[in-house]
């Protein structure tokens, strides 16, 4: 057996002796995650069920100088949750989320705390109290929201994949619904417990300083195993004190659409505070012919585009008072049609948006250019022109979010699970990257759906400094994801190895 192999056998025996579940069998199934990138097949996967087992695991890893790569459920597309062959993949899905036997049992009732960490009672809370749920890293937004909904509350920042773990959301500093109001996930965390390392072994640290937490968010597993978090929760906005609106514009000139939409977004960003700002391009084929939305008296019209032109639709949702300026702003742009929506109509349009990102009808996600940010919305027109020049005719559609710090654009071609289709979609992505990721367009490949792997090659230099400081502070033994520090790590697209 190769050296790494021998090491893992010893490690596995030690961990098994302490009752920590390990899997060393056929592990090609762990070669990748939702990013579909891969660094090869890990030779050991470990499933700790609580903080104590995480500590034992880090102790052994430091003693054996074996790298650990933590993973929530691997539903993020950042690629930080895939392990190189020599590393041990740590599935954190059960940490703080299972019973003494390590089973995820039934329905979950979260503990509630206030800002000072003292237990709080949700039934007696008032809507603007600052409250948090104290949850294990393995818990997910879905199950937490299902537990909070009867009491009228919800997790403040919920990424689109509601089934990702809080640990994962924190590691990637995920954005989602509620981000415009509460910021990315790291902003909405009041306290974390993290198993860091030291030359002698594991150290359990409790971090309460919000600035430090904000810095740690998006650490992509570099600094340790987060085991518990206090995650901000917010009252569910009731339909009557909520404003939903849709703004749409049609034109044959993509650049004109982009410029107008960009200007509109700048105005909205400066004068409104909203929970959700989403945009998508709608064409005749985005939903199935028999989809009931086509027959909706209000929404049906959007799905009948005039041939030869494209239609952008921007959806906003926020508190009525915070969105008062929106109708006025819309009037400043005569080409943009403004219409208020009910919450159910808003949700119907959101389902169309989710479908458009290839998450429900598409065949296979082919990464490569699925996530970048346009810092200056004014240049949104030029970006769109460049995009449509490349992707015209392909099956995917650009969609994205309007965040205060810029316009985030996703593009994910939908490829059938066949070799030719996968290769072709991959090549399209490469061409799109060259066309769009250019400094003059103030675009930055956020890889938040891919940044995980090229942490120190892409992204702002300031971010690199922060991450290096955190690495020194939390992981002097350099046990956690050391492969992220070497920019040369060769991530590959696993899809083309499919035997289809």
């Amino acid at each position, binding site marked *: 057996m190769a050296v790494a192999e021998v090491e893992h056998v010893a490690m596995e025996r030690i961990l098994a002796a302490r009752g920590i579940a390990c899997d060393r069998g056929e592990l*090609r*199934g762990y070669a990748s995650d939702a990013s579909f990138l891969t660094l090869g097949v890990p030779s050991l996967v470990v499933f700790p069920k609580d903080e104590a087992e995480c500590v034992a695991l880090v102790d052994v890893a430091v003693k054996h100088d074996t790298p650990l790569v933590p993973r929530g*459920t691997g539903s993020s597309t950042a690629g930080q949750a895939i392990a190189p062959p020599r590393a041990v993949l740590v599935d954190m899905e059960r940490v703080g989320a299972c019973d003494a036997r390590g089973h995820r049992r039934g*329905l979950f009732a979260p503990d509630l705390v206030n800002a000072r960490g003292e237990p709080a009672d949700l039934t007696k809370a008032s809507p603007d109290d600052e409250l948090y749920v104290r949850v294990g890293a393995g818990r997910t937004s879905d199950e937490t929201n299902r537990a909070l909904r009867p009491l009228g509350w919800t997790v403040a920042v919920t990424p689109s994949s509601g*089934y990702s773990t809080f640990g994962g959301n924190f590691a990637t500093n995920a954005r989602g619904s509620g981000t415009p109001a509460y910021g990315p996930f790291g902003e909405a965390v009041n306290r974390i417990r993290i198993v860091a390392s030291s030359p002698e072994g594991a150290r359990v640290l409790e971090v309460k300083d919000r600035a430090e937490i904000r810095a740690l968010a998006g650490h992509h597993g570099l600094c340790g195993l987060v085991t518990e978090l206090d995650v901000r929760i917010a009252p569910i906005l009731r339909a009557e004190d909520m404003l939903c609106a849709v703004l749409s514009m049609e034109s044959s000139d993509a650049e004109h659409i982009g410029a107008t939409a960009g200007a509109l977004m700048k105005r909205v960003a400066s004068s409104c505070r909203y929970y959700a700002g989403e945009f998508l391009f709608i064409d005749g084929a985005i939903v199935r012919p028999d989809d009931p939305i086509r027959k909706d008296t209000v929404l049906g019209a959007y799905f009948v585009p005039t041939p030869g032109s494209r239609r952008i639709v921007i959806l906003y949702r926020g508190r009525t008072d915070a969105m008062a300026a929106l109708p006025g702003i819309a009037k400043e742009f005569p080409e943009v049609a403004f219409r208020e929506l009910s919450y159910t109509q808003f949700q119907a349009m959101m389902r169309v948006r989710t479908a458009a990102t290839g*998450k429900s*009808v598409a065949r296979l996600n082919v990464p490569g250019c699925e996530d970048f940010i346009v810092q200056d919305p004014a240049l949104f027109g030029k970006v769109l022109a460049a995009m449509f020049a490349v992707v015209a005719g392909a099956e995917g559609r650009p969609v994205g979010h309007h965040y205060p710090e810029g316009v985030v654009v996703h593009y994910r071609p939908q490829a059938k699970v066949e070799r030719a289709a996968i290769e072709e979609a991959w090549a399209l992505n490469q061409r799109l990257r060259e066309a769009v990721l250019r400094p003059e367009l103030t675009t930055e490949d956020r890889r938040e759906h891919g940044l995980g792997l090229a942490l120190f090659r892409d992204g702002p230099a300031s971010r690199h400094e922060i991450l290096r400081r955190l690495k020194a502070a939390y992981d002097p033994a350099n046990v956690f994801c050391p492969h992220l520090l070497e920019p040369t790590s060769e991530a*590959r697209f696993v899809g*083309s190895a499919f035997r289809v």
Partner: protein
Amino acid sequence: MTNAVPVLAAPISQEATSPDAALKILAQEGCIQCNKCTFACPVHRVDVLFSPRKVILQAYLGGADAVNERDLWACLTCGECQAACPTQVPYPAFIRAKRVDLRDAMERGAPCKHGGFKDIVAEIMARPNLKQDRRQWITDGLKVADSGDTIYFTGCMPYLDGIFSYCDSAEIGRAAIRIMNAAGIVPVVANAERCCGHDALWNGKQATFETLAKANASWIRGSGAKRLVTTCAECYSMLKYEYPKVVGPWDGLEVLHMSELIVRLVEEGKVKFSRPVEAQVTYQDPCRLGRHAKEYEAPRAVLKAIPGVTFVEMDRVKENAMCCGVGAYSNCDAFTKFMQQERLEEAASKADHLVTACPHCRIHFSCYVDGKPVDPLPTLKIVDLTVLAAQALG
């Protein structure tokens, strides 16, 4: 700034052999590795090493030999993963096809966990010149016939009580006949009837399934009946959806689950539930009746039609209902007891009767309650829908 991530030069799996049948089923839909299936999977909740998502990616990369024996047989084929999957990956169908590929190569003699009993009874019933005596369980006072327009398909019922002694499966049959007789129907219970082949199909014995399907189809078509009723969810999913693929469509024959017949008979006034049944009940959607056959409403309608019954839904029902812990008798093991404890705790928190519409869910839950539960469990009676309905007859 373009730093394209190069397409994977060396493929991970050794050689790109021709994809097997199972992989073709899988490849029609695309897995986006979002892990929703593994979160929904009842087996994964108690056995973290079992992950449907890992098996799919492994199948894409590894091909025929990449599914190890543990993963292949631990799957309950309950379909909760497919219900949760955003791209509807047909995972149970993939597992079924893979079992056909790998079954003979495996050391496991009889995958049927009850010591091979269900397997061997099905094999015997697949033999041509079998002269069964299938009416021993029909007590006097119940009228059945050799011919008529309604067939009551009983499947393996005559053989269940011989082994599964902790609940009376034939009681379901008797209740069904009592209801039908009350509605003026004298059902056909034929000695020519064979096991419906559900376990054979789901345990990878395709040949046995097709033999049984053809044998059953020939006598059913020969009987000239217009309606076939069964009280078993597994028989229902076989006869209604799987048989047509092997023996062609049932032109002129309607396949009904007993709950559907009861709803129809109540609507037509042929059956009156006059005697109240004082019971607080909750309903377990059998996977083969719910997710596999999309029949959620009829059983609930029956429960609502029975006077005196207070019906409380569990939290996870219909497409998200949790399985009873054993699929096609092929995977009852050390983890099953925790799954059953979880589901029965949820049921016991809502009612003191758990009603289900499949004799096999009832057997598996009764086996657990009859043994020693792993944690304290309030007393819970496991009742069949048809038996409950029969109690309400005048």
